[in-house]
């Protein structure tokens, strides 16, 4: 094997993200990390479910949750999942420009989601006086949703760093695995959100 990591359409392997040992390691490492993250979020969900009715005479979920905003947030995040799929599709076809474009769209959708979440928290705190310290339910709600938001922040920083760093260098076997691991992480954030909107908001509304 040569020490050269560059890619061109002729030498393009089927899966550039797994063509090198480093790439393979990153691929497996991230998947295994997601296995651990599953338990991390399960612990938060479990805590939330145990405390969801412990409102200590403060506001309940049913009283404060507004489904419209949550629906918008869900659409933003689900769509961002699709756009990162598009980005990976173009990566496999070695079309760097289009990959960048779709990743940029992903970033914008992510930022939109984050903006909604910040507005949502602000709204609960100022309009309902519902805070982290109001009740055990409040603590559990902000911790679960906040940790998910923290993951979005981390994912966005990761994505922006990747885009900026690789803006001028094109796709190669050294950075293809990096883009791919990011996209897996981003899908996982979406997976967690699916359970958050179901368990926290929808089930909170149903009662």
């Amino acid at each position, binding site marked *: 094997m040569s020490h050269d990591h560059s890619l061109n359409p002729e030498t393009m392997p089927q899966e550039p993200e797994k063509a090198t040992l480093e790439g393979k390691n990153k691929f497996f490492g991230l*998947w*295994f990390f997601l296995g651990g993250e599953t338990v991390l979020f399960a612990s938060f969900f479990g805590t939330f479910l145990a405390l969801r009715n412990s409102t200590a005479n403060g506001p309940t979920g049913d009283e404060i949750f507004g489904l419209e905003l949550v629906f918008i947030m869900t659409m933003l995040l689900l769509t961002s999942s699709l756009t990162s799929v*598009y980005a990976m599709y173009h990566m496999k076809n070695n079309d760097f420009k289009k990959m960048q474009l779709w990743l940029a769209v992903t970033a914008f959708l992510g930022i939109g989601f984050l903006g909604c979440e910040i507005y949502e928290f602000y709204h609960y705190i100022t309009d309902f006086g519902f805070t982290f310290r109001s009740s055990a339910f409040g603590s559990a709600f902000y911790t679960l949703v906040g940790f998910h938001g923290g993951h979005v922040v981390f994912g966005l920083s990761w994505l922006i760093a990747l885009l900026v760093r690789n803006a001028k260098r094109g796709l190669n076997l050294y950075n293809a695995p990096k883009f791919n691991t990011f996209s897996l992480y981003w899908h996982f954030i979406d*997976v967690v959100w*699916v359970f958050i909107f*179901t*368990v926290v908001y929808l089930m909170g509304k149903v009662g």
Partner: protein
Amino acid sequence: MMTDNTNFNSFQKQRNKEEMKRQLITFVLMIGFTIVAFAIVATGSMQKMFAVPLLLIMAVVQVGFQFYYFMHMKDKGHEFPSLMIYGGVWAAILTIAALVAIVWW
């Protein structure tokens, strides 16, 4: 590395395209599930006893789509990723079951 001729490339491109089409269908289904889920709750048209399991089932199916289509867990070479995700899911089920069912007050 040097035998990747144009024929092969176009075959690969075709396969990628078909995969993309499947992913797009998946996405439409996911959006559909989401809309149905929100509609059930927003209209209040279903009793709690039916609504909660249905919501959970739709969430699980949607997440399955994410994992198997968006994250390619259905493809070859994903045996260990699947193993670790299912291991994590198993630990997750135990954790949630414990915190829901055997936390006395």
